[in-house]
């Protein structure tokens, strides 16, 4: 103890004052805590929960589209998308300059970069900058994670079509939902960024493919990243009930992608075509091909607007599905007249007509395509050789309405009932001419209709179904494009059964005569498609060459005309002839002649499809000079 008795300084009152001051200040702080923690504790507790809990939509994965053997025609692949989180940005005071490396990778202009920087200062939620990064872009951006806070890669699902344009017209494509659609579809649970089917099966089966979105709740940290640990899951306890997501269902088509690919390969020299292959036993569509087509992968991606412009300018109309668009059917339509004549008793098999290359109707002369004439023809040989004069006789006797009646019976002029978009075509009758034709009804119209010219237009699909009906004994089926729908476990949820539109009201005997005439056309010398017939199996079929444009009286060779004035080439057929497994219609828009162009294509398709690739080109040279085309 110090012995120094000197009085120390007197601070006692100040000690009390200051201690009191400290106590009052701290009580003040504690009362602030009372306000925050007791009075408003519940409110702030809720706010802290709102911070870490986030409701998330669980988007359903879109169902696949498969072919008849279960091969994927449409599927989903992961897409890596670049997002910006402005919250993180602003806290780190990110400037446009800091984003320069990103601009380089994404090839952004200076304006776009400044827009981005401005956006990142204004917005509070993460926004999408670039969808579907390439591998190289992804790698470069991942290297930037450390230096640029706030950039995020999120995965989404990108629709992909492994067969590109080959299936384009059947499947259609998907695209991101626009604000207009959003208003309409909001109540169905669509959200910004969802895709919606725009055409084909994607559109027709949108509700099936899409599935149903779910609602879930996750725990996030300040950066918005999901927290997965078990500890964090305790925050999720409570009244919240998640809504289960139902994945989109798979749509199984009746299409055989192998056949579709064969058709695509065989048609490589023709710029514009439509091909339909139908199973005559139940109306199942095995191939529905149209050329040219767009690449649906590009249409479903960020290049869509560019691709759209390009497609609009293409003279071959890639957006048009030629398999279901209506054209002059030409001579493939003669089956209608043949059947009508036999049924109505205007002609019997034994009735012969002499063809000298022309037919007088009133003061007009209608020509046969063979100027020198076919000589004496009955219904079978007239079909075999496609004699026009024989059918002028038939038309003259029967008139427009009778032919039209049988055309309608075979399904011409009406929609077939395809699930995707199709045209109805036109099967004119007297009434139609009176109502719609500028010249009104003229008796001569029958002579044009009978050849599949004039005002009759039909789709390759209609022709295929009509031929299938003739081949199978008179059953006209609705086209069956979808086989079944399965859920994600692979269990069938719905199967589409064959749908018979009608039994043709014709006698089996007459049908047999028509069938035989078509067999003769391909298998008897002199037949229009005789020289291209395959040896391994028999085909029955009819060629057609539809004139698109008449150049006065002069006949100009097809190759010398401008493309859009050239004739359409048709070949409508089935095979094997006696026990049909496939009805096939080849339509080459401005493709030349039925016998010279369409029939060989059809034969190649049959050969590859039935025999596989090994039975290469077995062209029969016999009768080459005979079939100088119709």
């Amino acid at each position: 103890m110090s012995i120094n008795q000197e009085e120390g300084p007197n601070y006692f009152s100040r000690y009390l004052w200051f201690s009191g001051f400290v106590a009052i200040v701290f009580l003040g702080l504690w009362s602030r805590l009372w306000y925050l923690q007791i009075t408003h504790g519940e409110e702030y507790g809720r706010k802290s929960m709102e911070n870490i809990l986030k409701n998330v939509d669980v988007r359903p994965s879109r169902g696949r589209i498969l072919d008849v053997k279960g091969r994927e025609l449409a599927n989903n692949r992961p897409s890596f998308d670049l997002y910006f989180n402005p919250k993180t940005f602003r806290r780190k005071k990110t400037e446009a300059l800091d984003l320069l490396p990103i601009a380089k990778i994404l090839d952004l202009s200076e304006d776009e970069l400044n827009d981005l920087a401005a956006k990142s200062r204004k917005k509070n939620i993460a926004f999408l900058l670039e969808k579907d990064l390439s591998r190289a872009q992804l790698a470069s951006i991942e290297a930037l994670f450390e230096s640029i806070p706030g950039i995020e890669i999120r995965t989404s699902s990108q629709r992909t079509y492994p067969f590109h344009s080959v299936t384009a017209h059947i499947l259609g494509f998907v695209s991101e939902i626009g604000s207009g659609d959003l208003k309409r579809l909001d109540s169905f649970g669509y959200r910004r960024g969802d895709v919606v089917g725009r055409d084909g099966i994607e559109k027709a089966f949108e509700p099936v493919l899409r599935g149903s979105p779910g609602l879930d709740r996750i725990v996030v940290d300040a950066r918005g990243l999901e927290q997965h640990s078990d500890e964090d899951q305790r925050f999720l306890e409570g009244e919240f009930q998640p809504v289960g997501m139902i994945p989109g269902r798979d749509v199984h088509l009746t299409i055989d992608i192998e056949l579709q690919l064969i058709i695509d390969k065989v048609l490589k020299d023709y710029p514009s075509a439509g091909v339909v292959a139908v199973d005559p036993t139940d109306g199942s569509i095995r191939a529905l091909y149209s050329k040219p087509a767009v690449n649906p992968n590009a249409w479903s991606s960020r290049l869509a607007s560019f691709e759209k412009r390009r497609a609009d300018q293409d003279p071959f109309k890639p957006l048009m599905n030629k398999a279901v668009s209506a054209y002059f059917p030409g001579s493939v339509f003669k089956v209608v007249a043949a059947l009508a004549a036999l049924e109505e008793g205007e002609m019997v098999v034994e009735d012969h007509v002499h063809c000298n290359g022309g037919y007088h109707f009133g003061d007009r002369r209608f020509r046969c395509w063979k100027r020198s004439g076919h000589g004496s023809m009955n219904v079978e040989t007239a079909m075999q050789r496609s004699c026009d004069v024989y059918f002028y006789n038939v038309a003259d006797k029967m008139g427009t309405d009778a032919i039209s009646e049988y055309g309608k019976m075979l399904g011409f002029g009406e929609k077939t009932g395809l699930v995707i978009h199709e045209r109805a075509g036109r099967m004119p009758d007297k009434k139609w001419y009176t109502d719609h034709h500028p010249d009104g009804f003229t008796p001569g119209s029958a002579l044009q209709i009978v050849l599949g010219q004039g005002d009759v237009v039909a789709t390759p699909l209609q022709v295929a179904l009509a031929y299938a009906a003739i081949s199978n004994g008179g059953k006209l089926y609705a086209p069956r494009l979808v086989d079944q729908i399965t859920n994600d476990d692979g269990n069938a949820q719905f199967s589409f059964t064959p749908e018979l539109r009608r039994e043709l009201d014709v006698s089996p005997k007459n049908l047999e005569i028509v069938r035989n005439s078509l067999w003769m056309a391909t298998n008897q010398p002199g037949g229009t498609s005789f020289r291209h017939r395959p040896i391994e199996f028999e085909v029955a079929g009819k060629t057609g060459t539809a004139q698109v444009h008449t150049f006065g009286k002069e006949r100009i060779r097809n190759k010398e005309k401008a493309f859009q004035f050239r004739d359409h080439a048709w070949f409508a057929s089935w095979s094997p002839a006696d026990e049909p497994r496939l009805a096939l219609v080849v339509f080459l828009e401005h493709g030349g002649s039925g016998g010279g162009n369409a029939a060989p294509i059809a034969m190649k398709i049959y050969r590859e499809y039935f025999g596989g690739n090994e039975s290469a080109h077995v062209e029969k040279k016999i009768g080459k000079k005979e079939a100088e085309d119709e």
Partner: protein
Amino acid sequence: MNKGTLFEKFDWVFLLFVFALATLGIVNLHSASQSVHGFDVWLNQLVWFGLGCVVITAMFFVHYKYFKEFAYVAFGFVILLLIAVLIFGTELNGSRRWLNLGVFSFQPSELMKLGVILFTARYFDDKNQSESWSLAQLFIPSVIVGGGIFLVLLEPDLGTSLVILAIYGTMVLFEKVKLTALLTLVLIGLLTLPFAWNFGLKEYQKDRVVSFLRLDDDAYGNSWQVSQSIIAFGSGRVTGKGHLEGSQIQKGFVPEHENDFVASNWGEEHGFLGMGLMLLLYFLLISWSLRISTYAKDRFAAQIGVGFSAMVFWHATVNLGMVMGLLPVVGLTLPFMSSGGTALMTLMIGVGMVFSVSSRSKVESRG
């Protein structure tokens, strides 16, 4: 004076308060640094506290007359360091606060607090004036201390300069000051305020004040961390969410939660009662060291106690006011709670001085 009496007079109660607060700080850092860093901040803090204990022990054996003797030298040395930091300092976030010595780096502005305490205590001790101080008499020490504060302000480090000013002001008020002098000072302060606003404050400092005054206008802007800190406190409610359970901190919603905003972790996890405990410990520590002034043998010893109390008080008050949204964000640590070696070491040196003083003062003369 022999060793025996020195230990007999050892201030065990003060030691208890120091350990209690340091323990609370380290436990809190254990939680606050849990999810964020690869290395453990709380362990780092523990090591610094251990080193601080060594310093305390060493200083305890040193008679405070040596502190008194070297007070001006120490103050001058810190001034030199502050000049050095302005020239050689490492720039971080737009201010030069750190002096890198190769092995470790530290902030001389922290030492300036101790420098001002030593200087002021020595100055009043030298004058040993029993009557009230006039304005003219206060001019010289104020200019010298003001110079030190100015150097800190240049870094710029607004928070620390304000705290140093507050420490000096508290020590002055513990002496007698003439009422006229006091009123004049207040008037000068009010007159310089607009001038300081226009010329003294940097843009970001003005932003902070502005955002403080309109707290909820821009929840993601400047006051984002304050509003998140308030949510952290509020959501702690009465008893808190429990150790390691505070989602606001654990999920990273409150930035700087190991440094300036460390209290929001304690508030979130231990609630109103935990914060009460913390405030109580601060109060006990402050008033206990302040009590030295009532039994010290000389003005220097008394003012060391006052200065240390003032340092802890102003730090704690400004920091807590800031994180609770009562004061603008100026960037100031919370004693014994915030992580950081220099800050803790400064405190521990202060504690060491208090021990040196308290063990060599007479037994309570009053009260």
